[in-house]
Structures are given as structure tokens and as C-alpha cells.
């Protein structure tokens, strides 16, 4: 009986460990997995953006909380937006960020990612995982991820490159658009930007 108990307990601990993977472990696992694919895929190395976008969609995005990211990027005006507008904004901003991020991945060649030591107090729900990208002939680039603990596990809500947040760097631009054309104006602007990027990509891929 006692044995069974211990066994059950061990099983429970193992299961919860899988469900709530530590944030630094998660970042390392996803990064290594994605870079391994990029490294072995000729199409991606030749700049096939759509293929990278699909890869990011499948492997990376499940670990991101885009709603939170968009709220951070929009700032004060987020509360002015209706639930539907928030949804549209999140969808458009996601498309924009994924494309920009995916393009950075196609440029990936000889870089190496180093993971900085990570410590977390028990019960912490908001953490920073620090990494560094090394490339021959240039200075290492700091790449940090902010994660929050949700019921579904740890999710990334911000990324900073050399101290520049890919999310909050949009705040002034978004606020400007909202001043000019309201929340709908902002949605329309990002949507138009996404469409023009998409049609450009079509041209490049055909070449």
C-alpha cells in the first residue's frame, strides 16, 4: 500500500513537471528545436519566408501570449478597444511580429545561443530568461524573454533584443495611429502593412 502511494506520488510529480516546465528549460528546448530545423532546411536558408512562418506558427507561437503582447504594445488605448477590436488588433499584430521575427531567422547562419544562469524564487509568476546570441566577428547580442505563468504553463509576453523590446517599441507608433484614426484606424494601418509585406514576399519567392 505504502509502495503504491509512493509510486502514485512520484507519478504525480513527474506529470506536473511536464505540464509546468521551468521557463528557462522551455526557452532552451524551443530555441534548440527551431534552430535545428532552420539549420537543416535548405529552403529556409534560401529565404523561403513562408516556410519559416509555418515553422514559427507550429513550434514557437503556442508558447506566446499574444493578447498580452498586444495590450503592452498598445498601452493606454487598449482599454478603449472593444473585445472585438482587441481580437482584431491581436491578430494583426501577431502577423506583423511573426513576419519580422521569421525574417530574422532566415538570416540565421553561424550564430550560437548561450543561456545565462537562471534562478527563480518558488511561487514566482513573472520571470526574465536571459540569452545571448554569439556570431563570429561581431559583438554578442543580448536576447531576453519575459514569461508569465498561466494555467496553460509559462508563456512569453515580451522579447528584447539588445535591450530593445520588440513589443513596447511600437507603443508611440500605435498611440499616434490611434490619435489619428482611432482604434479602427490602427487596425487598418497594421492590416495594410501586413498586406503589402505579403505581396512583396510573393514577388521575392517567385524569383
Amino acid at each position: 500500500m505504502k509502495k503504491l502511494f509512493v509510486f502514485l506520488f512520484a507519478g504525480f510529480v513527474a506529470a506536473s513537471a511536464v505540464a509546468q516546465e521551468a521557463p528557462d528549460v522551455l526557452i532552451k528546448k524551443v530555441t534548440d528545436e527551431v534552430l535545428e530545423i532552420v539549420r537543416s532546411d535548405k529552403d529556409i536558408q534560401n529565404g523561403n519566408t513562408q516556410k519559416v512562418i509555418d515553422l514559427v506558427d507550429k513550434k514557437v507561437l503556442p508558447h506566446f501570449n499574444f493578447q498580452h503582447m498586444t495590450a503592452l504594445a498598445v498601452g493606454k488605448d487598449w482599454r478603449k478597444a472593444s473585445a472585438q477590436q482587441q481580437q482584431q488588433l491581436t491578430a494583426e499584430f501577431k502577423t506583423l511580429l511573426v513576419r519580422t521575427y521569421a525574417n530574422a531567422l532566415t538570416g540565421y547562419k553561424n550564430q550560437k545561443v548561450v543561456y545565462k544562469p537562471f534562478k527563480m524564487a518558488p511561487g514566482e509568476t513573472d520571470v526574465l530568461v536571459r540569452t545571448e546570441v554569439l556570431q563570429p566577428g561581431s559583438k554578442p547580442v543580448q536576447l531576453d524573454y519575459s514569461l508569465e505563468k498561466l494555467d496553460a504553463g509559462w508563456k512569453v509576453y515580451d522579447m528584447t533584443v539588445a535591450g530593445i523590446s520588440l513589443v513596447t517599441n511600437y507603443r508611440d507608433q500605435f498611440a499616434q495611429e490611434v490619435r489619428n484614426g482611432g482604434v479602427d484606424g490602427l487596425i487598418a494601418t497594421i492590416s495594410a502593412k501586413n498586406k503589402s509585406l505579403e505581396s512583396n514576399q510573393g514577388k521575392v519567392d517567385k524569383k
Partner: protein
Amino acid sequence: MNRIFAATDAKISNWLIGALFALSAGMGVADENPRDPYEGFNRAMYSVNDALDRAAIKPVAKAYDAALPLPVRAGVGNFFGNTGDLWIGINDVMQGKLADAGIDAARLLVNSTLGIFGLFDVASEMGLEKHEEDFGQTMAVWGVPSGPYLFWPFIGPRTVRDTAGWLGDTFVDPVWSVRTRTAAVRNSLVVTRYVDVRASLLPADKVVEEGALDKYAYIRDAYLQRRRNQIFDGRPPRLDD
């Protein structure tokens, strides 16, 4: 004579500033951004710089990037990096970061000798990490306020504090103080370094081009965030959302 020039200069600059303010008012920048009070002037300068970059600087940087194999480019970057390590160390001393200054001094020693005049960054291989310091950061640590954001032709974004810092950095810059009879060596070193730095920014161009709704604002905000990060050595305190 000097006085006359000064007076004319003042007149011209008054006129210029007046014209630019009129321009910015005409462009309808009504509610000003507290982080960028001279936005009208800056946007005008940004356009000038962007045109210059497209016409001349970027094509040269691209050709340079395409012509030099990676090890050579790395050597050029390392060489200029090494010439900067002494001043970086002095700035670390001025900021009270003596341990970092010791590492900078060791880097300079190792790279100038084992690294053959700085062409190879042997120190980094040995675990002596390169630091990013300049006089603008030192002034920030001393408590000098950043002042408004400005955009300059050629050197690009700088706050007032960073503009003063840049002047200080240039004044003691070993590359600028190379003395030769014709100054040709110095000039070609300065130009090579400029092109090398521009070439290293080529990948970032694409991100700005694709990611930004407004390139001017994107670059401004990225600059301000990056400087804050440098001043706090990569660990800036969190801002309230």
C-alpha cells in the same frame, strides 16, 4: 572677423530654426511627444540622412559587405574594437566599475600582442568579455540628464547628452588622432570604420523596413531603449506598464 562670422552664424541658425519650426507646424505635428520636442526638426534631418544613406552610404556598405570574406570583416571589426578598449576602460573607471576596467586593460594588452595589433579578439576567447561604454553613458551614471532627442546627419540619433558624449569620445579617439603628414591614413581609417559600422547594421535595416509603421519613430524608440539598456549594463530596472 570671428565676431562677424559668429553674428552671421547666429542669424543663419536663427533663420534655419525658424524655418524648420514653421515647417514642422505646417506638417501638423500638433500634439508634441514629450520625449521628442524637436520632432519636426528631427524628421527633416532624418529625411536628409535617409536620402544620403540610400544614395551613397548604404551602397558602399553593401559592396564592402559583399567584397570582404567574413574573417577579414571580423579582423577589421576587431581592430577598431581594440582601439576603443582603452577609452572603454577609462569610462569604466570614471563610473567606478574597477573590476570591469581591469578586464578592459587586460583585453587591450592581450589583443594588442597575442591578437596581433587587435586583428584577433583572443581576449574574448579567453573569457575576457568586451564591454560597451562611452562618455555619454558615464555622464548618465554621473546624473547628467539626457536632454531632448536629436537626429543628426551622418551620426544619426543622439540625445543632447549623447551628442556631448560623442564629442568627448571623438576628441580622445585614437583613430582621429593618428598623425601623418597628409592625414590620408587617418581619413581612410575613419572612413573604413564608418563603413564597417554601417555594414554591420545592414541586417537591422530589413527589420525596420518590414516591422515599422513609422521608421522614424521606430528608430527613435529603439535608440532610447538601447541606450537605457547600455547605461544599466544590460539590466535596466523595469518601467511601469
